[in-house]
């Protein structure tokens, strides 16, 4: 049945222009289905399925952006920073499904300067993200975040300077041989890569930044809101040399290094230093505005300090035929500092949310999510298997 919905979706898209599906087109579709002998009941089910399918809206949204960019790329440039994905929502204790969307928007104006060995950047940014279900009762991720921020960042290391032009020429020569090989992991290629590494030495790279910010958090209907001024610290490090000790310390990548070895993706057990997780630690001074649950529990809406930690990890698992398989994970932890006993007993002083997914380059994914975000009343466990269509 899903396949049929997809065909119909494609049909609608083929006849749509600038993201609009007219009543005339739908009537045309109904006539076509009637002509093929489908009953009224089946036709109704088909139309409802197509209308409830997030794939339809994702395609129309993409079509809209493409058309807008064609018409006036400068005027609509902000759309490129806005990432919207339509999807279906369902909580674990409900059979109701709702269409909705997730969004994230990130814009920053930054400069990147180099002073001697120091590489720094200063940026001003605006960020927004969240999930909105058209039926708000079945939104397991009922949390929206918006903030403006300034960020000062510093980058250290990455490449060992050789300053010898003969090295550059030699690297070009080796590169010219490597690009001709159909298998970049063949014995011949490995010899060339080893030689390449003798002339180009990569070192560990470190990154940190400080970001004062002012944010607003809410649920999707803004019945609960709070301001969150604070300061964020972003940390990242990469070990680009697979033989470096830091690469070997990336224990999160050990299970996947083993899979890569078993599947023959890598010839040796090789944890990737390039997949060391990145982290963000934010110290917020939360100022609740509307929050009846909190007010009923402790009798006031006094501000409170909070720490938020977010960690992201992604690694390569294998390449099967033309498909790259990746493992992705993201963890968010919120802890109210010196929380009132009423808040603690209601289990509202800390929130842990974890999501992980196996994802292929063609769009297939299997994901698992567990936990709750601030304003969520309970833990939700969400499993999903799906396909992100690339039209």
């Amino acid at each position: 049945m899903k396949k049929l919905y997809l065909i119909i979706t494609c049909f609608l898209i083929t006849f749509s222009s600038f993201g609009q599906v007219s009543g005339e087109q739908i009537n045309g579709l109904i006539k076509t289905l009637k002509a093929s002998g489908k009953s009224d009941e089946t036709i109704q089910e088909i139309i409802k399925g197509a209308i409830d399918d997030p794939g339809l809206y994702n395609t129309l949204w993409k079509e809209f952006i493409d058309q807008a960019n064609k018409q006036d790329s400068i005027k609509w440039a902000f759309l490129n920073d806005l990432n919207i994905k339509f999807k279906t929502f369902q909580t674990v204790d409900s059979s109701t499904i709702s269409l909705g969307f997730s969004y994230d928007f990130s814009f920053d104006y930054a400069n990147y300067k180099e002073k001697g060995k120091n590489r720094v950047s200063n940026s001003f940014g605006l960020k927004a993200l969240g999930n909105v279900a058209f039926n708000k009762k079945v939104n397991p991720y009922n949390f929206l975040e918006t903030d403006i921020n300034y960020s000062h960042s510093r980058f250290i290391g990455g490449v060992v300077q050789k300053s010898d032009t003969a090295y550059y020429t030699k690297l070009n020569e080796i590169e010219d041989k490597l690009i001709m090989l159909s298998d970049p992991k063949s014995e011949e290629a490995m010899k060339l890569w080893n030689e390449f590494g003798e002339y180009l030495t990569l070192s560990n790279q470190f990154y940190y930044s400080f970001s004062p910010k002012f944010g607003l958090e809410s649920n999707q209907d803004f019945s609960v809101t709070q301001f969150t001024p604070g300061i964020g610290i972003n940390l990242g490090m990469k070990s680009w040399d697979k033989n470096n000790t830091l690469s070997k310390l990336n224990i999160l990548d050990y299970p996947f290094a083993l899979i890569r070895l078993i599947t023959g993706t890598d010839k040796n057990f090789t944890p990737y230093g390039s997949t060391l997780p990145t982290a963000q630690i934010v110290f917020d001074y939360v100022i609740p505005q509307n929050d009846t649950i909190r007010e009923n529990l402790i009798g006031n809406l006094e501000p409170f300090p909070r720490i938020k930690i977010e960690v992201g990890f992604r690694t390569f698992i294998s390449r099967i035929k033309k498909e790259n398989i990746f493992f992705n994970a993201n963890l968010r932890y919120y802890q109210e500092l010196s929380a009132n006993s009423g808040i603690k007993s209601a289990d509202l002083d800390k929130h842990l949310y974890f999501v992980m997914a196996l994802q292929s380059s063609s769009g297939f994914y299997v994901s698992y999510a567990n936990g709750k975000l601030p304003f969520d009343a309970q833990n939700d466990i969400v499993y999903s298997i799906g396909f992100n269509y690339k039209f």
Partner: protein
Amino acid sequence: MAQWSRNNRACTTLWTTLYTMQQLTTNFEDSGALTMNDLTFFNALSGPDLRNQESKIIADQLDNVFRIGRGAKYEQGIDRSKAISNMIEILCDEEKQVNELAFTVDEAYLFWGE
């Protein structure tokens, strides 16, 4: 858009650099059509802050390798700020392809031997 070509030093240098950075595992020919979410750094589950942070790290390292490791210079009218900002714009967009990144790189850098 510039073609993904063995005769373009921006394309070949970008490919060897992404390969040594463990961002891709495909041969040169197959790599141009890879999208950003086919590269190892692009974690679709992360919030925009972390994804932006990863993109900055990758862009900074590409700039490092091109100039310090491979002897590239900025093209006329381009500085580090512009080169990196343009790369980050591509790196943050999951649907952009490696050949589009190569086009941006080609506009920003004059590679050794070009």
